[in-house]
């Protein structure tokens, strides 16, 4: 049984019961475990070691653009709201310095296989500014404007036109991710994001016309004033736009952590049953339209590379969710960006002041990180198997990682057995399999293998699993 063979089963009562706070496992260990003991020197040592592997991994660069023209109230990202594009110049100056410091850490023969611009709003940068950043990357990395690569950018279609998208293609971009959230005007008013279907279509059409290989759109369920009828109409439009991938994220209302969310009336939020029904509707409609459920929040057409990667078992988790190029070392550039070099994670300063101060002093702006030990590495591999492929062959895994699986993970298997009694997983002598019911509760299954979750103080930091 492989995940692409089985239809996930939507059981609202079961999902409600498992709706606990939990990590999304875009990394393991998760960000709360990162600590200040991991410094610039630790990162340099990790980069050096990564160059010294017999075949150094290709590189993946993430660039964070923290600016937005207008605040969306649901947002939990680190960003700065301004209408003045020139406000970004001070930041870009530091970003250029960071690129100049980070690039030389990596051997030049390592191809830049993957690039991702996230935000904030990456298209806050106009074409001259974007071109300057790309040229800086070209000077420091083995950048390719053509050929085999996955260079993606998140686009807010309210501030991009067709020409911008096609110009980005000449810079090398060939993947696009477009924010929609919901087309329902009542919801758009409540979250301060008024965006027409036409604006969205223009960007997606331009992407297709200029040769982008895969286009993705983001939706959010659980937003204020969201109704099943309204969301149904949104889903109609989305299916009509026919993106290659759709991500359907759950809104996490944490106004104490994210200031913008204070503008959202808690009373207008859908109740837990409606929340679930909204996701259930998206799930059902996208399946009917021919999308496969990859896992977590992600759907993709059967011929999309994400679906293909899942079939070929090369799918991996990364900070954007799922990735076909999980084997890359990830270099995070910009405020709050996370790097994954070898068996380490590290994160840049999450505030602009700290980020800029470090670079002004000629240092890389690393604020915290973690060097994985062997236990972390093994658990990360187990979590990845379950979240990406829905099954784990214990003997094969044990052989690969040189361990006695049932003995090392005795406590974890007991926890899994509890979930097995709820039908989330099955387990025999050799294999753990996530069931059709469990596929919507992958986080809960993965949590069984998280060694850090026994610390009770952590639970408040995570959003709900569904």
């Amino acid at each position, binding site marked *: 049984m492989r995940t692409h063979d089985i239809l996930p089963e939507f059981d609202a009562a079961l999902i409600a019961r498992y709706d606990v706070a939990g990590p999304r496992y875009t990394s393991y260990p998760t960000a709360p475990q990162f600590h200040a003991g991991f410094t610039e020197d630790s990162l340099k040592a990790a980069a050096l070691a990564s*160059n*010294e*592997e*017999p*075949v*150094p991994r290709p590189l993946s660069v993430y660039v964070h653009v923290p600016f937005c023209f207008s605040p969306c109230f649901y947002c939990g990202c680190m960003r700065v709201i301004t209408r003045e594009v020139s406000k970004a110049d001070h930041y870009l100056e530091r970003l250029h310095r960071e690129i100049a410091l980070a690039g030389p850490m990596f*051997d030049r*023969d390592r191809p830049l296989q993957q690039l991702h611009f996230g935000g904030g709003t990456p298209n806050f940068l106009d074409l001259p500014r974007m071109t300057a950043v790309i040229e800086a990357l070209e000077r420091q990395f083995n950048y390719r404007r053509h050929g085999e690569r996955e260079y993606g950018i998140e686009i807010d279609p309210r501030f991009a036109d067709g020409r911008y998208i096609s110009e980005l293609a000449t810079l090398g971009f060939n993947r696009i991710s477009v924010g929609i959230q919901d087309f329902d005007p009542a919801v758009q008013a409540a979250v301060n994001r008024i965006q027409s279907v036409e604006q969205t279509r223009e960007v997606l059409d331009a992407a297709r016309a200029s040769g982008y290989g895969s286009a993705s759109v983001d939706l959010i369920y659980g937003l204020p004033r969201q109704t099943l009828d309204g969301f149904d109409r949104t889903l109609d439009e989305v299916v009509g736009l026919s993106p290659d991938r759709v991500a359907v994220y759950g809104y996490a209302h944490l106004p104490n952590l994210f200031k913008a969310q204070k503008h959202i009336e808690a009373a207008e939020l859908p109740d837990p049953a409606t929340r679930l029904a909204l996701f259930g509707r998206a799930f059902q409609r996208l399946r009917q339209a021919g999308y496969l459920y990859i896992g977590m929040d992600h759907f993709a057409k059967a011929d999309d590379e994400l679906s293909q990667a899942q079939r070929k078992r090369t799918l991996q988790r990364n900070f954007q969710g799922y990735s076909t190029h999980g084997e890359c070392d990830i270099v995070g550039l910009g405020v709050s960006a996370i790097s994954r070099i070898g068996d380490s994670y590290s994160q840049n300063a999450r505030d602009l002041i700290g980020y800029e101060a470090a670079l002004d002093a000629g240092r890389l702006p690393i604020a915290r990180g973690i060097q994985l030990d*062997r*236990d972390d590495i*093994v658990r990360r591999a187990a979590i990845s198997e379950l979240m990406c492929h829905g099954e784990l062959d214990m003997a094969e895994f044990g052989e690969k990682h*040189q*361990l*006695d699986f049932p*003995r*090392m*993970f005795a*406590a974890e298997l007991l926890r899994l057995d509890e979930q097995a009694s709820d039908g989330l997983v099955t387990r025999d002598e050799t294999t753990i399999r996530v069931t059709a019911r469990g596929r919507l509760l992958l986080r809960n299954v993965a949590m069984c293998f998280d*060694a*850090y*979750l*026994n*610390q009770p103080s952590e639970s408040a930091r995570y959003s709900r699993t569904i």
Partner: protein
Amino acid sequence: MQTGKSTECSLGWLNPIADDGDELHFCSTCAFSDACLSVGYGKGELMALHCLVEHVGPYRTGAHVFRTGNPFRAIYAVRAGTVKTCVVDKDGREQVLGFYLPGEVIGLNAIYPDQFPCDAVALEAAQFCRFSFPAMSALATRMPALQAHLFRLLSKELGTATFLAADHSADERMAAFLLDLGDRYRARGFSGTHFRLSMARGDIANYLRLAAETVSRVIGRFRNQGLIDIHGRSVTLLNCQGLRELAKDENYAAG
């Protein structure tokens, strides 16, 4: 540490260690074990040889076991980890001379000059058995098998440089290098087809007289051709016959 974290991790082949000996038995991988056991030395002789041995280490990654010019007092048998020997020329350029695996002996090239003619650097946490050389020489006069074994080790050491001096392509060099490592691991009782490349890409390149990019390109090509599989530093030789044909030389031992 964190609660709930298991500390039980067996490292297995990822970190082969030659450490199953006691005062009467050499480690099964030891360079000296068969020298003495096969000729039936008794308890007295074995204990005399064991008295020469001092366990030293662990040395951390990058630490020097000895440096060029240090007075020669002892030879070292690797118990765990990998070691490279190298010389640095007057312009500061390093030349890697060889890599040494668990069970192998470093320092033999210091016998004549009476001082170490190269540096020895741990490539990962490394431990050694240190054999006092004056005491060993004295014992060898009473134990012919020990003496014969020392001669064998010396002669092997002398033969390693010839392959690299000859005119071989990058593919030939790399194939020979991988086969040689496999043979040496197998000779010590470890897997000869599945092992860890503990040396840095730059060190392999330097040793084989290739560019670092070439090392990766050739290994990548071997992988694409199904000759080997590689994940990080863990390498599996899938088609030894194919590698042998590439290496072209019966006598592919590259050191």
